[in-house]
């Protein structure tokens, strides 16, 4: 009994970690609606947001009721990476966040899809979506990095600013059978290659902040996250026990 429930807990925790990443990033991308620099990006960003929301719904449903988990947990109970909760900033910040996360997510889902664990079926579908997300982020990193002087500078600032949130991605998540070290070196190789091709320099700062690495996974978040949840949950919480 104890081993089964421990396993269930690990599965639930892993589902929450992956589901919260997708949920929170989807929400951030949703904030772009109506504000994108060009119409094609309205479509693209919404498209990515929808893919992520779809993934989040499957994953949260593996852990419980999707709406209860999304709308009734408080900040300290969310297991998403600090990276995905970072505010959109300018387009370069959004792209840098997308680049870091989608390269990670692609590698992670590819590995999960190849295994026979409980996340394999979801990962097999998600990896195809994330391949598009990654391509989108890489193409924009190249265009902004190797575009104009202004865009180069903005893109460099963005990759530098978010660099310190990238270390937490490789803290092992219980319930996920993944070789995190291999994942991390593959991630570094890919991201460094894209940055170089985009004529950007690889940031030199630490890849974790003063918080212990893996903070988001432990429910320790950054300040903007609370406000994001306040907005996201307000209506649902105002009408307890109703259906929509």
């Amino acid at each position: 009994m104890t081993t089964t429930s421990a396993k269930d807990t690990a599965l639930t925790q892993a589902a929450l970690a992956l589901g919260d990443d997708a949920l929170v990033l989807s929400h951030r991308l949703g904030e772009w609606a109506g504000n994108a620099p060009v119409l094609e990006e309205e479509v693209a960003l919404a498209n990515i947001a929808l893919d992520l929301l779809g993934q989040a719904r499957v994953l949260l449903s593996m852990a419980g009721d999707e709406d209860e988990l999304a709308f009734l947990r408080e900040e300290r109970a969310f297991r998403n990476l600090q990276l995905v909760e970072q505010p959109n900033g300018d387009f370069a910040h959004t792209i840098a966040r997308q680049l870091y996360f989608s390269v990670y997510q692609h590698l992670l889902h590819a590995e999960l899809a190849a295994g026979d664990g409980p996340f394999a079926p979801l990962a097999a579908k998600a990896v195809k979506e994330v391949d598009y997300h990654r391509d989108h982020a890489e193409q924009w990193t190249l265009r902004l990095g190797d575009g104009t002087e202004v865009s180069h500078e903005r893109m460099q600032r963005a990759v530098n600013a978010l660099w310190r949130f990238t270390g937490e991605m490789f803290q092992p998540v219980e319930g996920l059978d993944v070789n995190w070290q291999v994942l991390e070196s593959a991630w570094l190789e890919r991201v460094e290659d894209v940055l170089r091709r985009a004529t950007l320099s690889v940031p030199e700062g630490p890849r974790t902040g003063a918080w212990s690495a893996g903070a988001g996974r432990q429910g320790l978040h950054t300040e903007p996250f609370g406000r994001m949840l306040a907005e996201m949950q307000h209506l649902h919480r105002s009408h307890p026990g109703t259906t929509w």
Partner: protein
Amino acid sequence: MATAAARETARSQAYDAPEGAGDITAEYQRAFDAAVAADERIEPRDWMPDAYRATLVRQIAQHAHSEIIGMQPEANWITRAPSLRRKAILMAKVQDEAGHGLYLYSAAETLGTSRDELLDKLHAGRQKYSSIFNYPTLTWADVGAIGWLVDGAAITNQVPLCRCSYGPYARAMVRICKEESFHQRQGYELLLALSKGTPEQHAMAQDAVDRWWWPSLMMFGPPDDESQHSAQSMAWKIKRHSNDELRQRFVDICVPQAESLGLTLPDPDLKWNEERGHYDSGAIDWTEFWEVLKGNGPCNEERLTRRRQAHEEGAWVREAAAAYAAKHTTARPGTSTSTSTSGETGMNGETGATRA
């Protein structure tokens, strides 16, 4: 068949027309009139009267702008949608609207204008968008009311446009109407869930319908005797029905739907007229309509400012894409086929954007 042949003649002559052939324009005009009379489609390379072209540019641009501005009132609720299912539906809808804007700008471009030029006119306030989007979305139920009433009115207006005489516009409308009717059903279903929910939810739904009903009726435009473009547009078969005719059709559809929703419509004069076989309805406040059209509605300033801001703040991104395309055109042929127009066009072939 005869008219098609005549049009064919006019078309071929249009390319090698000798200078100073005075009757030729009249001949083109006759071929055009015959094609319209025979319900044939006018295509981009066909001769068309200048006024027909100008009217279409104005109407299609206004339609495209409405899709783009129309994203704002709904996007206002994306981050607050009360369930993940509703959030996904709303995101998909706003994404569809951006897509509709893209179809429509493309249709307008077949008439010899460009998206950039049209957007500049929108931002400068020289081209309009639908007056309905100058109303605020104050509660979640407004998302449902927009789906049911605003999209419902749009469909009533737009289904006849699928038979519009200008081919590219008609074809865009076929695709758009399919998605719009889907949105309309989703809006109705959202309101139904609220109407059958708690008393608070029901009240929220009723309040939204009360606020959106009259503005939705105004979407059909001024009454027939005050509609300056109607007669000509109907003669050209751009429009197929008058404003008042379409408005009546919409009212007739909505009354029973409101009943099945368990909601009322805010018009004490609304009642079935046995003789006419239609619902009679109360008078529309045309003063409000003209004020909103003039820019004095609740959100005119905000909507346009937000749109301009998105465009201005995105300028450096578009410039970066163009600069990148210019640098890499020779290195990667085929990826930036249209650097002469805009860098982002070439770029988008490579991104996930085209999947939608």
